[in-house]
């Protein structure tokens, strides 16, 4: 075992921290200093969107563990971007399952940051299962239905859409500008990045399909695992930043003539924040390591996602108590990290979703 990132990974982290510190200051106004689109171009210059893409398709041949380390830094700086959905989940699906012409046309564009994709998966039940899909769609036919909670749909060039046809659930890759697609904001407490996307007789060609007709869930499952792990890394980064801020506050905030960090009640709360971060990180990284090596990892990913979500959310919630009244203000950064964790926890499978995977893995009938 070796918990130390390689030298190249350490460089990646250092460069990311440097870039993000300049572009995502902690005292930025709500919503961040730049719209996701603006910073995306800069991020593309660093090669981040192409991290999982092979060199012959314009990427940098990186690994999932590279992505985990990079995304942890993004979480640490509360970066608002379509990175996980587009550069991780969607890119991996296009690489694995798009027809060669589509792959060659789209993946290099995505690697260069000129094109992003959003995931249009959830419907009215909010469940991430094949049974929950009622949107209709056949290759060579039309998409008809509505997807909900599609993150960053407004800025995405393409949409990855699940739809049910004669042979079961298939996955389609369609341009958002295609006739019949409309987006409507779904206001949320975590930054208004969610949209309802309606597909009204949208033409889809066989070349739009990712994988075989009816095999949609096989196409989707590995990408959801990557997305879940990247969300873990993001939550860990956000929680780690909350920890840093809380400890700093505990050292400098003076009450009754002493830094509040000298009171045991605060000390013990800070210790619990550290526990959340330090226990989630090795679990998530080791799950990613298994995925990267192609080992069976459904249970490990489910455990990582469900544990990390709970641990990091409790870091955020406990931190509010350490910060006191100032943490309740919009101008204070705490709520942004908290909301990021809250959102990340629910995407790529919420706790209930992953609990069922774990339950089966430990042998419950």
């Amino acid at each position: 075992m070796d918990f130390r990132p390689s030298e190249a990974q350490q460089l990646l982290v250092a460069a990311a921290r440097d870039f993000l510190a300049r572009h995502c200051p902690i005292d930025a106004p709500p919503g961040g200093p730049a719209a996701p689109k603006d910073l995306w171009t800069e991020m593309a210059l660093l090669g981040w969107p192409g991290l999982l893409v092979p060199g012959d398709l314009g990427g940098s041949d990186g690994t999932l563990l590279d992505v985990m380390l990079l995304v942890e830094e993004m979480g640490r700086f509360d970066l608002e971007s379509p990175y996980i959905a587009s550069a991780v989940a969607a890119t991996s699906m296009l690489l694995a399952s798009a027809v060669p012409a589509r792959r060659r046309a789209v993946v290099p564009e995505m690697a260069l940051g000129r094109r992003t994709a959003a995931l249009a998966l959830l419907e009215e039940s909010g469940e991430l299962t094949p049974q929950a899909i009622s949107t209709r769609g056949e290759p060579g036919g039309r998409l008809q239905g509505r997807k909900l909670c599609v993150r960053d749909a407004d800025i995405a060039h393409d949409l990855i859409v699940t739809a049910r046809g004669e042979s079961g659930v298939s996955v389609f890759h369609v341009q958002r500008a295609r006739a019949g697609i409309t987006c409507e904001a779904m206001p949320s407490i975590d930054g208004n990045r969610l949209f309802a996307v309606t597909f009204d007789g949208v033409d889809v060609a066989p070349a739009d399909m990712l994988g075989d007709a009816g095999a949609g869930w096989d196409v989707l499952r590995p990408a959801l695992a990557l997305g879940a792990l990247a969300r873990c890394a993001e939550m860990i980064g956000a929680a780690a930043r909350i920890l840093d801020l809380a400890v700093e506050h505990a050292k400098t905030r003076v009450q009754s003539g002493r830094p509040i960090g000298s009171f045991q009640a605060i000390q013990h709360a800070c210790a619990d924040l550290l526990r959340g971060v330090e226990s989630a990180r090795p679990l998530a990284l080791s799950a990613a390591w298994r995925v990267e090596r192609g080992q069976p990892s459904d249970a490990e990913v489910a455990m990582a996602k469900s544990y990390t979500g709970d641990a990091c959310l409790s870091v955020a919630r406990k931190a509010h108590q350490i910060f006191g009244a100032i943490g309740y203000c919009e101008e204070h950064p705490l709520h942004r990290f908290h909301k990021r964790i809250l959102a990340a926890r629910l995407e790529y499978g919420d706790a209930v979703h992953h609990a069922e995977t774990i339950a089966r893995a430990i042998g419950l009938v």
Partner: protein
Amino acid sequence: MDFGFSVAEEAFAEKVRAFLRRHPPASFPRDGMDAGYGSGAASRAFMRALGAEGWLSMTWPRRFGGEERPMMEKLVLLEELALAGAPFGPLSGADQTAEAIIRVGTPYLQSELLPRIARGDATFWQGFSEPGAGSDLLSLTTEARRDGDYYVINGHKIWSSHAGIADFGLVLARTSREARRSHGLTMFVVANQTSGMEIRPIRSLTGEVYHYEVFLDDVRVPRDVLLGPEGEGFAALLGGLDTDRFWGRFYKAPALKRLLLRLVQHANTVTRDGQPLARDAAVRRGLAGLAAEIEALRAMFYRVGWLIQNGERAGHESALAKVMADELGQKLTAFAMDALGAFGPLAEASQWAPLGGEMAHAYLTSLGHTIAGGTSEILRTTVATRGLGLPTQR
């Protein structure tokens, strides 16, 4: 980064599993109860069986009879033993003591005790706490007075695990009064038969004996039994306590996993409301959540182990891992008592006890874990001050 076992480590794990198949844990006599840390019951016979395999000394330097195997293999061994519920209770104490003897022991301790430890023939108790010195260990009053080539120890130790069935005590005593309370303390390795020692059992809330108190009345020991230099016992101990917290709880994750899997078996076989208990949403989700927490605990301990293997002290990391281990143990056993329902509190002696009464027993012993080896409160303070740099209270 690499989060897997090497081929050699995998092969060793298989070797341990084969050993456990040849030596089923249940076939060994138990000399003392399980602390519930996951370290299994005390069994001298099982320790000797481990010794016969060479596993008690495998990481030692060759000049002390070891094989200089990497520390990771010790973790592999402990994990397999805990998963199997083997009675390896004295292992951690013996291992830690051997490590200290190799590092700072006298030639006498090295030549007399190391071979016995390697055979599984020497087990140890800790004589640290006193009636008036619990969390405030430095207020201990046991004294050792120099008398030529001997020391004469007087005092009263308490909460010493397995002291009555072990062979030697590690007794921390004051050898001089210094301005700093952490100075002037010395560690002695005292044989149980030494005259002047009285070892009395303390019956615990489980109804069984795990702890003892030890009265030392003019106990005379040669200077050969000093563990480390005179007056520097606390420095040696503190380094020891850091790793003691790691080694004392490393096997908790696999031990809890074993308990969890027993609960799964139970939930699959009993019915509630006409369906398997396993289908009850609260039980199902609860067990899944606990399984994830156990995996997180395991990953955290392996990381701390990796730090220690790389020469880091890992003091606050070990403390944090211990807090998590013991609180998770309490959470799991409390959940289990709920899940087991009306028969949950039945003990081993009852034919109706679910899971042979093991869960009820674990529920009770788990209460002591957040106290023993540093209370969770003391340890959180350690994490906050040593790990996060928060100001100390004074």
